[in-house]
């Protein structure tokens, strides 16, 4: 399956600032997704990153807060904007499709907002 590199692995940020998380896949993939996971909890889908078009957001998530880019079939970014302590969480990138079937996840970005 595809290998995903996600960075940064962790960060501590001041409230009101923004953080951009990068997701790089080692092969071209059809679908890329961004999830949020609170420690000890399940995964919540934020949005589907569409190549060459605007991301598709799930209920409760908006583009102004979580802008997403996907310039090609191997790379995507998620920005967490105007952060508050409630945004403290683990953010995960996922990819599906490409040469090998199945979903793969990055190791996540552990974000703490102070």
């Amino acid at each position, binding site marked *: *399956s595809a290998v995903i590199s996600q960075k940064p692995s962790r960060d501590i940020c001041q409230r009101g600032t923004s953080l951009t998380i990068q997701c790089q896949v080692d092969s071209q993939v059809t679908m890329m997704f961004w999830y949020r996971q609170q420690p*000890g*909890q*399940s*995964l919540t*889908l934020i949005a589907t990153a569409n190549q060459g078009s605007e991301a598709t957001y799930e209920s409760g998530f908006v583009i102004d807060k979580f802008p997403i880019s996907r310039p090609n079939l191997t790379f995507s970014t998620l920005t967490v904007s105007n952060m508050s302590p409630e945004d403290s969480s683990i953010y*995960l990138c996922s990819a*599906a499709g490409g040469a090998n079937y199945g*979903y793969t*996840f990055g190791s996540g970005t552990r974000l703490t907002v102070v």
Partner: protein
Amino acid sequence: QQQVKQSPQSLIVQKGGIPIINCAYENTAFDYFPWYQQFPGKGPALLIAIRPDVSEKKEGRFTISFNKSAKQFSLHIMDSQPGDSATYFCAASSTGGYQKVTFGTGTKLQVIP
């Protein structure tokens, strides 16, 4: 509304035991049912997956049982080892898996030596 229900929330078994984790779904459009294993500080890793045209799938010590009429599926871990201690998530998606995945709530498994 939660679409994939998972139980139990946590599970402790002795080494060599067979932990069983159960999931139920509501959306009949789901046609791909993966299980993920997650260790602390890591992203979820695909463990095994099944489609509704088969009732059972085995990969090594991991077996999925699938009951389409009941809309239920379960994960069995044979001869469990302390290294299997992790959080397990069932999931479901449609259109052959190339759509968004809906995750269960997770089961934290501890295998005692």
